[in-house]
């Protein structure tokens, strides 16, 4: 099963390598990992998407908690949550037909064209992983020049939160 694990971690040099090193040393699967500071400069928030049996995910959670720099942790997938990923995608758009079709698809998926040249469109799109995947699929007839995805971030719905 796929799990999204959110971590508050001390904003120390090397904290990221402790987490990534744990995953590689123990052979855990890692789909994406994002990290950035929070409103409290001493803390970073990390979101890890991983997959494994319940048993393995339980170990992942325990091993992460065991890292001295990890302050708090939450498995977002245990409750209702919102998951978002941001994508920047550069698509070939030189003919009129191409430009119209790409624009139409972009609108349908509620993306924004943020940069335009005579031969390309660059689109910004935010959503769940599946939406971004579908958009890439929808672009099948077009030439994708470059895709940049941020990796998943997420937050619990309602009153539940991960804070100190």
């Amino acid at each position, binding site marked *: 099963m796929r799990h999204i694990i959110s971590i508050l971690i*001390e904003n120390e*040099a*090397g904290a990221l*390598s402790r987490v990534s090193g744990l995953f590689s*040393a123990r052979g855990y699967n890692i789909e994406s990992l994002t990290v950035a500071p929070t409103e409290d400069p001493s803390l970073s928030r990390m979101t890890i998407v991983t997959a494994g049996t319940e048993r393995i995910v339980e170990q992942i959670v325990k091993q992460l*908690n065991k890292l*001295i720099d990890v302050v708090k942790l939450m498995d977002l997938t245990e409750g209702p949550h919102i998951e978002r990923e941001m994508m920047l995608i550069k698509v070939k758009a030189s003919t009129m037909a191409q430009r119209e079709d790409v624009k139409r698809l972009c609108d349908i998926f509620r993306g924004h064209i943020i940069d335009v040249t005579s031969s390309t469109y660059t689109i910004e799109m935010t959503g769940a992983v599946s939406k971004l995947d579908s958009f890439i699929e929808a672009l099948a007839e077009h030439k994708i020049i470059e895709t940049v995805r941020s990796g998943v971030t997420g937050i619990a719905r309602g009153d539940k939160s991960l804070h100190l």
Partner: protein
Amino acid sequence: MELSGAEILVQCLKDEGVEYLFGYPGGAVLHIYDALYNQEDVKHILVRHEQAATHAADGYARATGNPGVVLVTSGPGATNAVTGIATAYMDSIPMVVITGQVSTAVIGSDAFQEVDSVGITRPCVKHNFLVKDINDLAETIKKAFFVASTGRPGPVVVDVPKDITDPAIKVPYHYPETVNMRSYQPTLKGHSGQIKRAVDLLLAAKKPMIYSGGGVVLGKGSDELRQFVRGLGFPITSTLMGLGAYPASDKQFLGMLGMHGTYEANMAMHDCDVLIAIGARFDDRVTGKIAEFCPDATIIHIDVDPSSISKTITVDIPIVGSVPDVLSEMNHLIENSSKKPSKKALSEWWSIIDGWRAVKCMSYDQNSDKIKPQMVVEMVHEITKGNAYVTSDVGQHQMWAAQYYPFEEPNRWINSGGLGTMGFGLPAAMGVQLAFPDSVVVCVTGEGSIQMCIQELSTCLQYGLPVKIVALNNRYLGMVRQWQEFFYENRYSHSYMESLPDFVKLAESYGHVGIRIERPEDLRAELERGFAMDNRLVFFDIVTDQTENVYPMIAQGKAHNDMHMSPFSAPAQDKERELS
């Protein structure tokens, strides 16, 4: 008080009550060595290789329960220490390792003797720190000791760049009394509801089994364990790491379990209906085949580290907490419970166990014209009256030491169980001997292992450490040879030991006493002669039977009831099993 970084470091060690610092100097730590000069509080022990510094600190920690402390230089000093750090990590030994580092200004520039010590040690430490500001130094050292010695203990590395210890830069010194880390708060007290459930289950068990591990020794829970076992009247086995936490001579003790465990301990594991694991981690050398591990048992597990629970074996009642805390709560509940363990069920269980004991799985050839290694260990036990601290290296001799030297007290049996590091025994014995100068410290080793840290004979002379080295010299990497005999049709690929040095002369050239023993009839007298030399290091080079194997043996990945038995033990009787 204004101090330089180097002076702060030394002062921190004093304030922490550190007795011994095991180390080796080099460029990056010269300021620190200068601060160590002309002070007597922290005694520096100059080893001959940084690996030995870590093992010696480790041995000291295992015997005393206090963290061992190491100081090495950057680059090769740090990399040489890695084996010892990993050894301590695998066995959860509290240790603080201070590594010198190149100056902050040149970190990352491939400076002379620069390695990324924090990066290299990261997977084999409980935590590590790089000190980048002199003002953080004292607090970092405090944190290092705190993290190393609390919760599930382990080694902590503090990497200190040279400019941080610059004698010209002085700052006010203050050593914090306590330290609070929001990200590190180990659980000590177990969950009362879980403890109650566990006690109910234990009191209703018909074929209970207690499996205790190194966590009992590390957690200082031996007294509580003894009360627990005696209060219940249950059989108990121990892992290699837990030996001595429960007295080996007690009739409730079934001996060690696992790959080279006793027949009775492994059979009782296999057949039990309730298993309680106490400070043990279900290591693969203990469990054998996971799918057939304690097939009929409901399992309770007490451990201070939540990640140990249900890691390899899924347990039914997990209890996260320190061993003495949880056990004393259990003891209290058991004493005050109206329920008592069923006398009838227990006596039936004990009679099955006695049937297994009758197999006498530890029997070996008593009439050989060669020296049997088992006999050597038994005799050492007799001569030292069972009171010695025994360290070992890794191999057959290690198993024989564990099997034939019954330990009555915790912290007496000192070996590298988790990492299995050859070369551990002698330096570990130095650490123990320093901690207990008036006790007998024996290092049981092999002719292979002892050569991995032999240079420490020099350290032993310098500090007058009268360790007794008992080398079971079988001219083989015996444990490797045994596997090749059993599993590779006697193809002894590179497991012989030829061109061995003359260990007697070698010991003598280091200024010690060497005694070679070749015939069984000389064994006792020669051992007694050597052990009588209280103030001398004696190296016994004992020429043992090359073909001897360690029994019983569960082959890797086999179940507990599937053992290779010594040809000298009685045939296993299946009718005892039918009783059940």
